[in-house]
């Protein structure tokens, strides 16, 4: 362009002329690598054996990349920024990884890696062939993109990318329950992203920009703040629906227990947290003037979410559905932190003095999100193993598993303690921060509900633990008398077992293959566990859970690194001047 004319315009005003630093490529690598690997896996779909190693290799690389990104942004204290097409922000689409986004991406890739390792040991051939690993990798690139982007419309696009990947995962297996759950999941999530798009369109109409840093500047400076209140309400609606907050939570327990365990685990661990992350980003960082007005509403939503989640968990008997409700109560705790932080009010950029009130609440919410990704994923994987050894997901049909696998019982106890918020595991620290923040804020009733949620979670999971591990195995009618360790039957149970033997599972394989025929008879493996031999637990599945258990234990005992990350993330979120300067350049 510049060479064709003698009056070459000054490109420095419109383009980033300096080549990006080598370290800056880290911010785009998760997304680019994810899409390329997903495409590669799709091309190799006729080679099921190659799928798992490639996917695990990529996810391992993703953990390293996002870890390096996190280390880099923690070292400098400022986001790592890269602009697409070299157009100067706010015109080019920006990727900006601050401590919050990088930490979320890092922890979610660890969770995804564990899920992939678990899946490598549990997936049936048909599930591999129909694309579990490509969908997982593509969904992870959507998740990482959502965490790392610095552009609001781009965030919408990544929401859709992860949604498309998750649609592929949730119907994999194609049983009646999965189709039913898939329809609910797909419709509600599609609607939520539509609301998000509406809010984004309106915000663009008002402030004329989509770059997050630019929005943070311009939304504050707008003369007429009135319309932004409506837009904020729309954003809260959209993200609450994504995150499964109280009145919009019904799709989650209706769908998350239907797909294969590995799929449920990754959904429950990551997807609702993406909604919570978007709420933090938009409500706390972008629209600080509005957040005070909505703080009370958000806190009420959070309390109702915690209460419905923990009551729902008490009322279930299928362990996967108990976990579905625990996801909801965890989201309630995160949103409580967001509401408390929002209540402390707008912070002028650069004004550190007013940060104090909001800091512990926000740090608690971020820490809880990170903790929840690890622990919820671990609990779902554990439920998958319980289903595989015990032959059912129904509490009343399980029992005596302590005798079958003491190691699994130990893992279960740690995860139960951690998710209930008991020390010395990771669940304890965010709850401590949040309870203290609620008390400082004078909202003792919120603190009481946070603690009561922990108590009810302990009761629900403690009961499940006692039933599944300590009780004697119930004598099942129609038992075959000897353990059936046929690996295909056991593995397929993961995907499509129902509430009991003889339940009407009509597994119909996609495009008329005969894969589904071995699925509709889980009755064969309901047997007296104390007498029969124990089905072999594949080491891959145990390794996956062991990694997650080790993480929640180590970072529960040594919480300072994670708290430091949460503090930095909180600081950047509450006072976006550093973020704005990093993206837009120039003086604050």
């Amino acid at each position, binding site marked *: 362009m510049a060479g064709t004319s003698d009056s070459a315009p000054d490109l420095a005003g419109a383009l980033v002329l300096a080549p990006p630093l080598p370290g800056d490529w880290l911010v785009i690598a998760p997304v680019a690598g994810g899409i390329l690997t997903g495409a590669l896996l799709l091309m190799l779909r006729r080679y099921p054996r190659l799928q798992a190693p490639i996917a695990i290799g990529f996810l391992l690389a993703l953990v390293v990349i996002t870890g390096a990104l996190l280390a880099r942004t923690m070292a400098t204290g400022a986001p790592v920024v890269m602009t697409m097409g070299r157009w100067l922000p706010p015109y080019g689409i920006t990727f900006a990884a601050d401590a919050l986004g990088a930490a979320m991406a890092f922890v979610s890739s660890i969770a995804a890696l564990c899920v992939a390792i678990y899946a490598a040991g549990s997936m049936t051939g048909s599930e591999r062939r129909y694309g579990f690993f490509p969908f997982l990798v593509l969904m992870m690139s959507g998740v990482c993109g959502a965490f790392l982007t610095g552009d609001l419309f781009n965030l919408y696009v990544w929401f859709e990318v992860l949604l498309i990947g998750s649609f592929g995962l949730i119907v994999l297996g194609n049983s009646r329950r999965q189709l039913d759950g898939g329809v609910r999941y797909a419709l509600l999530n*599609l609607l939520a992203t*539509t609301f998000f*798009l509406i809010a984004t369109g309106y915000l663009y109409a008002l402030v004329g920009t989509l770059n997050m840093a630019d929005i943070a500047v311009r939304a504050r400076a707008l003369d007429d703040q009135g319309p932004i209140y409506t837009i904020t309400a729309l954003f809260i609606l959209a993200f609450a629906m994504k995150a499964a907050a109280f009145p919009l939570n019904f799709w989650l327990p209706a769908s998350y227990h239907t797909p294969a365990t590995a799929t449920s685990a990754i959904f429950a661990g990551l997807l609702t947290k993406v909604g919570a992350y978007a709420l933090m980003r938009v409500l706390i960082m972008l629209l600080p003037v509005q957040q005070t007005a909505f703080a009370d509403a958000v806190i009420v939503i959070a309390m109702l979410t915690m209460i419905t989640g923990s009551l729902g968990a008490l009322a279930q008997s299928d362990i996967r559905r108990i976990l579905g409700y625990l996801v909801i109560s965890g989201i309630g705790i995160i949103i409580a932190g967001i509401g408390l932080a929002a209540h402390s009010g707008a912070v002028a950029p650069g004004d550190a003095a007013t940060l104090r009130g909001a800091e512990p609440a926000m740090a608690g919410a971020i820490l809880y999100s990170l903790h929840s990704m690890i622990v919820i994923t671990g609990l779902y994987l554990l439920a998958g193993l319980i289903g595989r050894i015990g032959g059912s997901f*129904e509490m009343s049909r399980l029992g005596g598993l302590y005798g079958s696998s003491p190691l699994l019982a130990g893992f279960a106890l740690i995860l139960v303690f951690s998710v209930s918020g008991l020390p010395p595991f990771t669940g304890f620290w965010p709850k401590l921060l949040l309870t203290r923040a609620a008390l400082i804020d004078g909202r003792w009733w919120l603190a009481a509900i946070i603690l009561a949620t922990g108590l009810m979670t302990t009761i629900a999971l403690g009961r499940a633990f006692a039933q599944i591990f300590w009780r004697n195995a119930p004598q099942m009618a129609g038992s075959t008398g000897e353990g059936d360790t046929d690996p295909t039957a056991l593995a397929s149970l993961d995907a499509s077992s129902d509430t009991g033997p003889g339940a009407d599972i009509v597994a*119909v394989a996609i495009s008329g293959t005969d894969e589904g025929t071995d699925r509709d008879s889980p009755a064969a493996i309901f047997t007296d566990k104390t007498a029969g031999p124990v089905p072999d637990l594949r080491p891959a599945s145990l390794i996956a859970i062991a990694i997650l258990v080790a993480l929640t234990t180590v970072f529960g005992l040594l919480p300072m690194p994670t708290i430091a990350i949460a503090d930095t993330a909180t600081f950047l979120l509450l006072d976006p001047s550093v973020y704005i300067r990093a993206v837009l350049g120039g003086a604050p």
Partner: protein
Amino acid sequence: MEQALAILDGFFFAAGIFMLLSNSLIRVLIGIAILGNAVNLLIFTAGRLVREVPPIIPRGAEIPPALIANPLPQALILTAIVISFSLFAFMLVLVFRSYQALGSDATDRIGDAEPRDGVKPPVGY
């Protein structure tokens, strides 16, 4: 002109939400499709309506000579159209498959994922 399109868009939203509230999944899907188009029209209108002046800067100048049409909303809509079209296609197949497997597309008749007479949780040990 913006006002007329805003009112039209209101009708789009009303129709979409009306369809979403119906009992049949196919009608719900049509509602989603209408809602998606309503959002596209909303973004288009929100980008301000200008006569079709291409955003081309003549040689020698550094800024466009006159008011130009805003290309950004069109890029956004194009993205949104592609996404909503592909998701709509997926949803159509999914709903058709669930109609085949579950024998109904009425939302109150299908409940395989959450059976009403499910097992109660244990009350003792």
